[in-house]
């Protein structure tokens, strides 16, 4: 309990009175400490149409270190926090995960069963699958990607928008 706060209500059981605390949505979804607030999305005026990054071999399943790190610094302005990109998965289906480059709050060995928040797509088949997703970037404009099946092929398109 934080000094100076007072619980709004109490409940009683055979052991006595207990304070009731409620975690609000604001608290659950508060910005990361030190993260600048605000920002505006800007459309890339004429995005390149090919892939900015691609990986079709050399994956280690469920591992960011055995995954793909993409450095967006040459295609986004200084101060960019996130990009919106299209991502294609083909050849084999599975889960694609992402995290801000080097984010140690997210396990280096993500698990498909309990880390849904870092899934950016789930392809249940072996055919093409496309998703348009928001990818948050590190201070050096990198993002990490990992796959659940090591035979998955991934292609990431040039950003359509950036948040700054």
């Amino acid at each position, binding site marked *: 309990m934080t000094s100076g706060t007072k619980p709004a209500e109490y409940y009683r059981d055979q052991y006595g009175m207990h304070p009731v605390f409620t975690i609000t949505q604001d608290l659950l979804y508060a910005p990361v400490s030190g993260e600048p607030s605000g920002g505006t999305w800007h459309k890339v005026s004429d995005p*390149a149409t090919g892939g900015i990054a691609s990986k*079709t071999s050399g994956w280690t399943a469920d591992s960011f270190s055995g995954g793909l790190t993409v*450095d967006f610094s040459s295609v986004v302005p200084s101060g960019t926090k996130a990009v919106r990109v299209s991502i*294609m998965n*083909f050849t084999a289906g599975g889960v694609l995960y992402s995290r801000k480059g080097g984010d140690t709050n997210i396990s280096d060995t993500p698990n498909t069963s309990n880390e849904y928040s870092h899934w950016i797509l789930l392809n249940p088949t072996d055919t093409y699958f496309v998703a348009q997703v928001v990818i948050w970037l590190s201070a*050096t404009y990198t993002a990490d990607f990992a796959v659940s099946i090591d035979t998955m*092929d991934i*292609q990431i398109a040039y950003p359509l928008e950036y948040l700054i």
Partner: protein
Amino acid sequence: MRYFLKRYPDGGWEYSPVGRSGEPREGYEIVETIPQDIRDREPGGKDFVIQADPRDAKLADLEARVLKLEGKTA
């Protein structure tokens, strides 16, 4: 645009852009463009055919009719 490129023995590949720092990445070569043989095998390469959407023709027809109604075309 420069890319880090790695080719794998099974015929697969990995590429991603070289950042502003230009620092080399161990195990990767730096190329100015993605080699044609890789581009041809990816979605968006020359072998990837996007089917024409029949709705495009209907939309073009509708736009032509609107322009005609507005007197902008004959």
